[in-house]
């Protein structure tokens, strides 16, 4: 019953792929250093721009009522865009899961000053959300503005973009800490440039992570990192864009090199997983068409691989869950009902596919006497499995 007069478009597939590959090399006269550099800059730019994608998604989830984040709107340049319900839900689940891990870390011995280092932080609003907390009843106790020093590290292009609204808007700069002057100051609490900020509790470092390594001099701004404070390192879709060896070098730089063994260190990764099933393969090729290469995905493509990775970074405790599991098991009762009721999510199977291909993994070391990681341990037990 087939209709032979209708052309089979699939037969064109290989031919087209080949010609596309050939076309790319034309005109450039073969690879040269300049084209290599240009290519590298263009690739970096694509990675840098993933942040705008994320901030638009964040604002979409806020406007649809998933997240309460009064700061999201300040970091979206241009028009916001409404995302599909499953994207909103995914943004919500990932943000809440990391918020929970951060809260568990900060709420143990709240008087003890702690430190958070966010890699490739981009337009992330977590610092402002933490600082704008008012004493309100929350879970087991009162949630207050935490005693934390917050560092964000990103490409200079991204820190400039980040600092632009922070400098301009009192809603943002009022949380940064005082005093601030726009000058090259020798006073550590008053350094504030277009691309750099060092305030009491908030530091923005314009640093390319690929330049970090045990044999290289640390960026001067890293003097502001206190290597004795219990420290949490966060990578939300950041290290996954680096080649696996480079990603490992960066992670090890923080977990092994920068902090002595006596300092409790935790690491949170938010990354895609499962590149080899049909959805994963399609994800890899669709993102590649946009110039986005998830470089660590093959090596760290499962929760088990992520746990082994944490161990290889010297982190003894590990936990992890897919976004699907974080939604199924990690969002409770009334809150789940509230979120599920925000929008009609017709695409249930698609949600399960998509959410099954992202995970939050966490690992930690040190600090057993004060139980700083107890909450992480119980989250690992509660959410274990796929």
């Amino acid at each position, binding site marked *: *019953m087939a*209709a032979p007069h209708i052309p089979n478009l699939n037969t064109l*597939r290989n031919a*087209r792929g080949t010609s596309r590959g050939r076309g790319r090399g034309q005109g450039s006269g073969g690879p040269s250093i300049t084209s290599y550099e240009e290519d590298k800059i263009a690739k970096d730019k694509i990675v840098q721009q993933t942040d705008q994608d994320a901030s638009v998604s964040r604002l979409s989830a806020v406007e649809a009522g998933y997240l309460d984040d009064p700061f999201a709107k300040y970091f979206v340049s241009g028009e916001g865009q409404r995302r*599909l319900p499953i994207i909103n839900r995914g943004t919500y689940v990932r943000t809440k899961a990391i918020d929970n891990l951060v809260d568990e870390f900060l709420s143990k011995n709240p008087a003890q000053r702690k430190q958070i280092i966010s890699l490739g932080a981009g337009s992330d609003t977590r610092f402002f959300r933490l600082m704008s907390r008012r004493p309100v009843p929350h879970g087991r106790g009162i949630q207050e503005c935490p005693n934390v020093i917050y560092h964000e590290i990103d490409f200079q292009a991204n820190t400039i973009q980040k600092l632009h609204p922070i400098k301009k808007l009192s809603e943002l700069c009022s949380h940064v800490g005082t005093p601030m002057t726009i000058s090259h100051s020798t006073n550590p609490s008053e350094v504030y440039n277009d691309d750099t900020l060092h305030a009491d509790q908030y530091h923005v470092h314009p640093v390319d992570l690929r330049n970090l390594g045990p044999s290289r001099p640390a960026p001067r701004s890293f003097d502001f990192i206190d290597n004795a404070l219990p420290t949490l390192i966060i990578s939300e879709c950041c290290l996954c864009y680096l080649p696996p060896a480079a990603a490992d070098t960066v992670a090890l730089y923080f977990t092994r090199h920068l902090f002595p063994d006596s300092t409790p260190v935790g690491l949170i990764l938010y990354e895609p997983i499962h590149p080899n099933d049909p959805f994963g393969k*399609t994800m890899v090729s*669709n993102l590649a068409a946009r110039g986005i290469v998830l470089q660590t995905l093959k090596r760290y493509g499962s929760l088990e691989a992520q746990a082994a990775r944490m161990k290889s970074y010297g982190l003894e405790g590990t936990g992890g869950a897919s976004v699907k599991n974080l939604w199924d098991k990690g969002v409770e009762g009334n809150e789940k009902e509230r979120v599920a009721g925000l929008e*009609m999510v017709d695409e249930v199977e698609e949600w399960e596919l998509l959410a099954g291909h*992202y995970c939050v993994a966490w690992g930690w070391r040190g600090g057993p006497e004060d139980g700083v990681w107890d909450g992480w341990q119980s989250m690992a037990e509660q959410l274990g499995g796929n």
Partner: protein
Amino acid sequence: MSDLDKAISELRACKIIPEPQVREICHKARELLIEEANVVQVDAPVTICGDIHGQFHDLMELFRVGGDVPDTNYLFMGDFVDRGFYSLESFLLLLCLKVRYPDRITLIRGNHESRQITTVYGFYDECLRKYGSANVWRYCCEVFDYLALGALVLGTSSTLEPSFTDKSQAIEPVDDDVEIEIMNSRNEVTARFPRSRRRLFESDGLNSSPPGTPSKTGPSGTGATSDSGGSHHSGGAVLCVHGGLSPLIDSVDKIRLLDRKQEVPHEGAMCDLLWSDPDEIDSWGLSPRGAGFLFGPEIVKRFNHLNDLSLIARAHQLVMEGFKEMFDSSIVTVWSAPNYCYRCGNVAAILELGEDTSNGGVIARSNGDAGRSAQAFMPNLAPRSGPGRRYRVFEAAPQDPRGMPAKKPVADYFL
């Protein structure tokens, strides 16, 4: 060439047609659809298709694999629009074909054929983008309100006719015992499952695999009935509906009594038919979709028995293998949007049901009355012998790069 034929050839080339013509076609379609019952009667042979979701190029691939209209008699189970980039072209083409060949194509309503859902999932935006106003969206939504809620396929055969493309090909008869045949898009048989599968396993020494568990023969989506009848010729009646059953509906006749000419309500029988899903549960459950219900195997078997149905065919849920039979083959999900949303990596399928010619072409009107009242309580709901089923599985057509929309699609992934 008539204006309608011109419109069809424009749409086949994935080009939109002028707004006044859309209005006229929608008007004609409504006149046709208003005459249809809530449950349309369709005679086998018929090719049953699931969700399309605006994946125009894949719809063309479907026609290439399944045969063109009017050569093949088609039944589309809804969700023509939303998600894909070409909802307009896809729906308008199907609608033009319906107007041109009303007896060769049946369209029933999916949950996306609704004003509310299309404003969230893309069809509304697409109409605005392509026509600069919401007029065409409004015309289409008015058609949606008239689409039938279900279809009843009669006159199916329990056996499979051989499939062939050109006359030079030798026609190999298909063994009468074959209940399910799976073919790829190159018209090659990739698997066959006999009706008396259990018996075959025993004779082959493969009885280590109990019925119902995945067997060595690797049926990705199948669970052929193990009814060893084999002597039947009629495959029984098949109910087609987009989503599934409703706790408010215990007979096909009750569907016939609904007032369907309205926007899909948020609850009630009409909503359930378009939104519900089968699931491995006892009786009924709440749906994670926020509309419709989940229903279990006993619900389906009882409904089929009471209504003298051999099978329910439905769409609505993405299945990676294109189709999935459940509950001892009493219900099947057919999914016809390959690589759904251009990212899910799934294959698609269509289901061909052959015609029972054993009775001189006279169709037994077996739609739910025979012996129905005899048993209010049935300890053993033995499934009746289903129709011979040929699934044609196909992959996504490549996107025409020139056809990609100027506006970038929304973020597909979390970055």
